[in-house]
Every structure is written in structure tokens, then in C-alpha cells.
């Protein structure tokens, strides 16, 4: 590149010099010939006047001093040749025997000669003309020499520039090429063991290569550390997973045992309870009238206790059964289930004002019997906890977003609860209200959560004390359809 620029500059400079030389020479010849022709013209006036060709020839002979003048002539006013001169050296270039009349003063450059024409004018009258033929051989020889020198200088300069460029290439481009190749290799193979040799590189380039190598070393070190850390992390992870699996297995065993225990205990408790219930019933039937008022009260308290315990045992058995039960999923119309539950609950809420708002509910893939339990629990809770309200408002609906399972919600304007206790809400035997306020076993929401989790769903709640509560849940197993428009958007 720099060689091309150097060469171009030199060629341009050379051309400029040569052009200038040619122009300057031309101007110098033009001026010199003009002066010569005019001088001869002036000296020839009298010779022409007195028809003295001898004198005119003598005047012309004076041109011998200039070896470049190869021929000259003086023509009379009528164009006849009056006097002439031809250099001995010349190969006798043709001198016209007659001159054209009235040709203007001018100097014509031909290939090897310059021809000057000069009119001799006296008192505004043309009395003759001078013609000089000037050889350009000397000038051409000079020009040739000049050109030769220019070309020589050019050639030497270009060769010098090439040599310098080659050395520069070896010292600069070579290492840079190495560097680029190494950088490419590193970026392609991520092999940070590559190093660039810097044997020829000096100065900044050497520093660059050293820095590059240092950088590679650092990256290599980092890479090692990273690898080690990744290995450690992986080992830790595997260990953790192993531990989780072990714990899960243990937990499953414990859970199974616990369930079996709960089931058997509940089951075994049933028989004595039934006996207490039966005999206390018979006692009340047969000997009730003989009992005192206090006796009757005690007996009814015993009976209430047994009945409550019976419900507890039933619920516990249900909860325990859930652990064993497989979820059998199928497309289930939630609207139909809600409708049926609502009908059942309205008998329970007879005499109360309950305003139901049921939005469209999707058809979801789930176990219909289990979802029935969920909805029954949530809806009966809503009816139960709105009892103090003059007008109970219960809303059931679905929130659907494309790409996510639909969220079913049950909202009521009941007594609600403080979110402080939300953690206890879904625990078994955990109750936020006193039993004399709202009856219940404290197992319902635990059962609900269990069922939802068995469906890989999620349940959460949003509530405020005295303002009501909203339960949300999803059944991640998916939706079959709600409306045609949602079909494609919902994952199955």
C-alpha cells in the first residue's frame, strides 16, 4: 500500500518535472528564436532595400554561432528567397524557395525542429520575412537524459520502498498475521493454551503480543477456576439431589405409615364411638323421662360430642383415603358441578338472602369427584362465613390468560380473616374461628389443598378481616375447552 503511494507520488513528481522541463524549454526556444528572427529582420532591412543579398547572407551566416540553427532564409516582399543559410552539420532540411506571403509571425514546433517565421516590417509595410529552422535534437537529447535520470531515480526509489516495505512486513505484518490467526483459533476452539510467538516483533507490537499472551494466560487460569467451581457445584448439586430423594423417600414412607395409622385409628375409633352413640341413644329413649333436667342436659352433651367426633372421624378417613387414591382425570364441566352444589347449599341457607353470581367456568381436565369435594368445601365455607351478613354475596368465576391454566375463584363478603393467620389456614385441625361461632372440623381446607396439590395445581387466598375472602385455585392438568376462542391458547 505505502509502496503504491510512494510510487504514484514519485511518478507524479517525475511527470511534473518532465512536463515543466518541456514547457520551460519550449518557452525558452520560443523567446530565443523570436529575438533571433527579429534581430536578423532588423539587420536585413537595408540589405533588402538595396537588393544586397551578399550582406543578407553575411547576416545569416552569423547564425553559425548557434549550432542548433540548422537553416535560415530571408525572403523578399514578393516571397522570393533573398538569402539563405544552411548549417554544415544539418542534413539540409528543405528550405522553401519561396515564402508564403503574409503568414503571421509564429513559431511552429515539429517533431525534430522548430520553425520561426518573422515578417520584416518598415513603416507598416512588409518588406520581407525571416525564416529560421531550429533543431530540437539537443533539447530532445537533454529531455531523454532527464527522463532517463527520472526513471532511474523512480526505479531506485520504488525498489528501495519495496525493500523497506518487505522488511516492515516481516517486522509488522507477520507478527500481526500470527496474532490474528491465534485470536481466530482461540475464538473458534476456546483453546486458551495457544500462545503467539513474538520473536521478530519489537516495540508496541511486541507489547501487544505479550499482552495478548498474558490475557490468554489469565483467561486460562479463570477457565480452570470456573471448571473447578462448576465441578464442585455439580457435585454439591448431585449430593443435594441425592439427599432430597432420600428424604422424600423417607417422608413418603413416614407419610404412608401416618396415613395407615390415621386410617386404622379412625376406623378402630368408629366401633366404640358407634357403641357410645347407640347406647346413649337408647338411654335417652328409654330412660329420658326419668332423668332430671340436669341429667337430660348431660346426656344431650354426650350425644353432641359423639356426633361431632363421628364427623371428625369421617373427615379424617376421607383425608387419609386421599393419600391412597389415584387421580383419574377427565374433562369436567365445572359449571355443572358448581350448579349442583349451589342447589344443595340453598336448602342449608333457607331463610337467608344469598346473592349468587356465577360467571362462565371452563371445562378442565381433573378428577370430577375430587374437584366436587374442593368446590363443596369452598362454597359451603362461603355460605357459612357469610351468615352474619344481611345479604350474602357469593361470586364464582374464572380468570383466563392465554398460555396459563385458568384460575377459578370463589369470593364472598363474609367475616374474612386477618392475613396474619393465612399460614394456618390450610393446616389440618387448624381453625381461625371458634366452634361456637362457626361449626367445623378444621379438616376441610386441608383436604382441599391436598386435592389441588394432587392435581399439580395451586391454591391461595386473599382476605381481610370483616371484609370477606377470595379463594383462588388452578388445576394445572389443563383445560379441555371453555370457549372455542381459547382452545388453541391453553396448554393441555
Amino acid at each position, binding site marked *: 500500500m505505502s509502496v503504491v503511494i510512494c510510487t504514484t507520488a514519485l511518478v507524479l513528481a517525475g511527470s511534473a518535472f518532465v512536463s515543466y522541463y518541456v514547457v520551460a524549454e519550449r518557452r525558452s526556444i520560443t523567446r530565443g528564436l523570436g529575438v533571433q528572427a527579429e534581430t536578423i529582420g532588423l539587420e536585413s532591412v*537595408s540589405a533588402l532595400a*538595396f*537588393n544586397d543579398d551578399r550582406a543578407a547572407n553575411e547576416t545569416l551566416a552569423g547564425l553559425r554561432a548557434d549550432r542548433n540553427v540548422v537553416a535560415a532564409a530571408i525572403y*523578399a516582399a514578393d516571397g522570393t528567397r533573398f538569402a539563405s543559410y544552411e548549417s554544415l552539420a544539418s542534413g539540409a532540411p528543405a528550405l522553401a524557395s519561396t515564402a508564403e506571403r503574409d503568414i503571421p509571425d509564429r513559431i511552429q514546433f515539429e517533431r525534430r525542429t522548430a520553425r520561426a517565421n518573422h515578417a520584416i516590417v518598415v*513603416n507598416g*509595410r512588409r*518588406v520581407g520575412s525571416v525564416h529560421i529552422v531550429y533543431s530540437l535534437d539537443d533539447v530532445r537529447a537533454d529531455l531523454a537524459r532527464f527522463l532517463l535520470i527520472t526513471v532511474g531515480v523512480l526505479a531506485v526509489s520504488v525498489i528501495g520502498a519495496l525493500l523497506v516495505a518487505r522488511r516492515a512486513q516481516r517486522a509488522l505484518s507477520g507478527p500481526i498475521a500470527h496474532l490474528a490467526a491465534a485470536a481466530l483459533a482461540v475464538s473458534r476452539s476456546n483453546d486458551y493454551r495457544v500462545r503467539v510467538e513474538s520473536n521478530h516483533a519489537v516495540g508496541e507490537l511486541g507489547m501487544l503480543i505479550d499482552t495478548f499472551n498474558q490475557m490468554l494466560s489469565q483467561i486460562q487460569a479463570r477457565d480452570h477456576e470456573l471448571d473447578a467451581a462448576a465441578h464442585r457445584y455439580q457435585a454439591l448439586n448431585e449430593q443435594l439431589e441425592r439427599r432430597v430423594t432420600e428424604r422424600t423417600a423417607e417422608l413418603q414412607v413416614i407419610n404412608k405409615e401416618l396415613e395407615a395409622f390415621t386410617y386404622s385409628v379412625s376406623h378402630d375409633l368408629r366401633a366404640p364411638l358407634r357403641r357410645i352413640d347407640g347406647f346413649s341413644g337408647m338411654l335417652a329413649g328409654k330412660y329420658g323421662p326419668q332423668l332430671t333436667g340436669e341429667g337430660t342436659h348431660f346426656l344431650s352433651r354426650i350425644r353432641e360430642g359423639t356426633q361431632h367426633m363421628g364427623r371428625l372421624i369421617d373427615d379424617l378417613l376421607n383425608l387419609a383415603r386421599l393419600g391412597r387414591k389415584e387421580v383419574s382425570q377427565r374433562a369436567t364441566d365445572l359449571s355443572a358441578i358448581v350448579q349442583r352444589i349451589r342447589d344443595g347449599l340453598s336448602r342449608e341457607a333457607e331463610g337467608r338472602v344469598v346473592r349468587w353470581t356465577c360467571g362462565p367456568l371452563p371445562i378442565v381436565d381433573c378428577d370430577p369427584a375430587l374437584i366436587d369435594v374442593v368446590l363443596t368445601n369452598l362454597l359451603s365455607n362461603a355460605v357459612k362465613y357469610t351468615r352474619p351478613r344481611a345479604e350474602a354475596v357469593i361470586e364464582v368465576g374464572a380468570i383466563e390468560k392465554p398460555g396459563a391454566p385458568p384460575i377459578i375463584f370463589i369470593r364472598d363478603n363474609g367475616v374474612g380473616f386477618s392475613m396474619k393467620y393465612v399460614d394456618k389456614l390450610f393446616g389440618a385441625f387448624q381453625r381461625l374461628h371458634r366452634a361456637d361461632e362457626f361449626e367445623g372440623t378444621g379438616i376441610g381446607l386441608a383436604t382441599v389443598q391436598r386435592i389441588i396439590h394432587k392435581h399439580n395445581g395451586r391454591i391461595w387466598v386473599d382476605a381481610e378481616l370483616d371484609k370477606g375472602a377470595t379463594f383462588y385455585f388452578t388445576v394445572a392438568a389443563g383445560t379441555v375447552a371453555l370457549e372455542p376462542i381459547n382452545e388453541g391458547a391453553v396448554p393441555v
Partner: protein
Amino acid sequence: MASRLVLAAQGTPQASESDVKAAYLYQFTKYVEWPATFAGAANAITLCVLGDSGVAGALEKIAGDEAGAGRKVLVRQDPDAPHAPECHILFVGRGEERQLAVLFKTLDGKSTLIAGDDMSFLRRGGMVAFIVQDRKLRFSISLVAAEAAHLRISSQLLRHAVQVIR
């Protein structure tokens, strides 16, 4: 004597001897300096011819051609003796030799350039003599006579003379 000459100066190639002589006579005025004491007009050139009417006619023609270019040219044929010193140049034609003695006497000490034919004319006291050499009309000059008449003749003119008598 050849009546036709090769004429290289002004005029046509077929110019007669008279034409050439007239042309030379006119050209002489450019190479000769007359003294301040010259008797004739200073702002005009007076060219006089004794005899030869051919030359006189040719001079008239030149005077006409040259009118407007430089000084006015007056041509007089056969001037009276008293007026002779007013001539810048007086050409004495052939056959007028008998008047020469009187003429030279009249012009003695005056600054009139006297021209004539043949070298013998110079020996008699003339200043310029036309001669024919190699079929060309040439001239000789007597510098002695010219200096006596206080005329200064340019070296340019002398250069073209066949012979100069000093």
C-alpha cells in the same frame, strides 16, 4: 547596359532600372543625416532629378505611395540652379554631364547628396554612383565628398556599397 534588372527590394520583378534607381534614392534618405545648416525644408524630403525623366516619374510614384508614411516627399525635375541647394538628393541623369561643372560649383559647401551613374561620377565630385554588377544595380559612395558636404552616411548604407572612397 541591361535595361532589366533583378529587383529584390520594392516593386515588381520586372522593374526597370529607373524604378530601382528611384527606390534606392528614396531609401538613401533613411540612411543619410543632413546637417542643421541644410538649406531646404526640414519637414519634407526633397528629391530632385536632372534629366532622366524615367527616374523622376518613378520617384513621383514612390512619393505617392509613401504619402502619409513618415516625412512628406517632394519630387522636382530639373530644378533651377538657385533652388538646387534645397534638394536633399539630386540625381544627375545621363547626358547631363555638361551641367556638372556649374552644378558642383553651385552646390559647393551645400549639403545636397549628389548621385549619378558610373564610378567616373565620383571622381568628378559626386557622392553616390550607381553601377551595374552581376546584372544587379549597385552603388559606390565617396565618403570624402559626403563629409565635405557635412553629410553623415550611416554605416548600414556603407555596408551595401560596392566601393567606398574615403
